[in-house]
């Protein structure tokens, strides 16, 4: 790993120079306490001290709702729709969301790579930024509070600028092109970086005990706890849509008025919605909210090659209109 210092007075120039890598998207305030990744052209449009965005950065790689191809039934032809310029810079991504993207990479890129995802992923620059946990963050428990890879550059704020970690070849290229903006790190900077990391770890209040979680979930299959929460649950799908690791999508065809041409669209789906379990012939393999809720928690608690399907970002708890607390549910399941 290469470590550098970006002095505060160079921050603006650094930001501007990133524009050559594509449009820049950063955290922008969207409500009294809500943020979204939006296109930005200046530093001050962003709030880099944000806690979390409503929709996670997976939206840059799997579109919320995107046309994947157009078809013509008469000619029996189809034409894939790929973004003209997939290059983009995601500025200010948090460690938990970086971990979530690493998980999505496994799903979308290993074995049969999803070409839409691949194209966007390899054309995106990820600039990470340090954050401070609020009462809903439990990434420390999930082992995702610190990213050792999966980013191009990672910025850690120190008193007179940023302590920068270079995490990829693209990161090295950016640094090489902007040589004049970076300084080598001094022993003072290293000490400050270490102190700030320790301080940050001490700020975490919420913890989740992961020990035996998969067994606890399996043993709770017939638990009353699912019924209790299913009664509170509105089945609105918000938890899935704001989750950085949920990746179910739905595919629909729309025909144009000429009844010949049309388009195939994919959009984010949610396992909390009734149709998710509906298959041909009208069978629904998860007909009730109890089953859907239990399935969601089991999915989040399961392991994908050793990686948990949850990164502790807290979004599902924060944005649940019914106020269902994810950590509280898992604690009850484990009997804590």
């Amino acid at each position, binding site marked *: 790993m290469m470590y550098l210092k970006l002095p505060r007075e160079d921050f603006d120039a650094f930001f501007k120079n990133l524009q050559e890598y594509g449009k820049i998207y950063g955290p922008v305030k*969207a*409500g*009294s*306490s*809500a943020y*979204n990744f939006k296109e930005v052209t200046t530093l001050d449009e962003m709030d880099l001290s944000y806690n979390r965005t*409503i*929709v996670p950065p997976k939206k840059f790689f799997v579109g*919320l*709702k995107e046309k994947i191809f157009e078809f013509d039934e008469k000619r029996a032809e189809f034409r894939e729709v790929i973004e003209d310029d997939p290059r983009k810079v995601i500025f200010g991504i948090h460690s938990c969301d970086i971990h979530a993207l690493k998980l999505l990479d496994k799903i979308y890129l290993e074995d049969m790579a999803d070409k839409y995802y691949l194209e966007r992923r390899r054309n995106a620059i990820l600039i990470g930024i340090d954050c401070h946990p609020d009462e809903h963050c439990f990434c420390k428990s999930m082992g995702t509070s610190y990213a050792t890879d999966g980013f191009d550059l990672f910025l850690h704020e120190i008193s007179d600028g940023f302590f920068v970690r270079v995490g990829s070849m693209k990161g090295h290229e950016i640094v090489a092109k902007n040589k004049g903006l970076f300084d080598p790190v001094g022993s003072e900077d290293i000490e400050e970086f270490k102190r700030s990391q320790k301080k940050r770890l001490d700020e975490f209040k919420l913890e989740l005990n992961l020990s035996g979680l998969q067994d606890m979930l399996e043993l709770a299959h017939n638990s009353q706890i699912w019924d209790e929460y299913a*009664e*509170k*649950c*509105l*089945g*609105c*799908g*918000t938890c899935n*849509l*704001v989750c950085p690791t949920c990746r179910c999508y739905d595919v*629909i065809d*729309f*025909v*144009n*008025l000429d*009844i010949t041409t049309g388009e195939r669209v994919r*959009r*984010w789906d*949610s396992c909390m*919605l*009734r*149709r998710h379990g509906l298959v041909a012939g009208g069978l629904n393999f998860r007909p009730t*909210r109890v089953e859907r809720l239990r399935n969601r928690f089991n999915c989040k608690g399961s392991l994908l090659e050793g990686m948990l399907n949850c990164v502790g970002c807290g979004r599902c708890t*924060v*944005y649940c*209109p*019914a*106020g269902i607390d994810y950590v509280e549910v898992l604690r009850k399941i484990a009997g804590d």
Partner: protein
Amino acid sequence: MERPKIGVFSLTGCGGDQLMILNLEDVLLDLLSYFDIKDFQEISSFKEDSDLDIAFVEGSVSTKQDLRKLKEIRARCKMLIAIGNCAISGGIQAMKNGQMEILERMKRVYGIEEDIYGVLEPKGLSAYVKVDLEIPGCPIEKEETLRAITSILHGDMPDQFDYPVCVECKLKEYPCVLIEKNLPCLGPIIVAGCGARCPGLGLPCIGCRGPIKEEANAAAELEVLLSKGYDEEHIVNLMRIFCANFGEIKKITEIIRRRSGKGRQE
């Protein structure tokens, strides 16, 4: 190919759903050219009493005359499509259903005891006849309607919204008005398809597209709004504006009536 014969009819309602079809101005002529129109009051006084492939019906069944007309339409058509909230569940004119006798309502509104209209408690079409497809909204969304008709012309049953407004609200990245502003938003129980128009403007969903049938958890929505400090009668009245004939909401009304002991059956 012979063009499908269609009719567009109104029962008790404002006519807004027919108008939304006409509002498809950019494609209207192309769209209508696919059909042999036998009845479409908002377009023309021309009417031909023939069999129909598709009948689009807006408005609620609120009078005996509506019911007669509906049964005639059903007997004439192969496919019956209810368009708009009135035709699906009775609409806003049903908001007092189960709370006040219909003749009492007539007396309060028109000041007469005599039933000169042959009134019925307002209900949607499916309370009386088989309905093949429902296109929700107050009024219907023109894009959704166009897509539904296009699907049918293509030989498919349309993809229907079976998820709540919250889904669209999230996909549009709107801040949640329920969480951020404590507004009494009905989005979690109401059928999507509007693109979360009201929450996008910072306003709560008032439920004009109706609840997700046999799925919406109205009891949980009531609990959420109670926890935000809203009065239960206010919440139930809010839900009843567009959804009074919905089973879950009828149940809630009954529970609250008993709980408050106010005997709201006036």
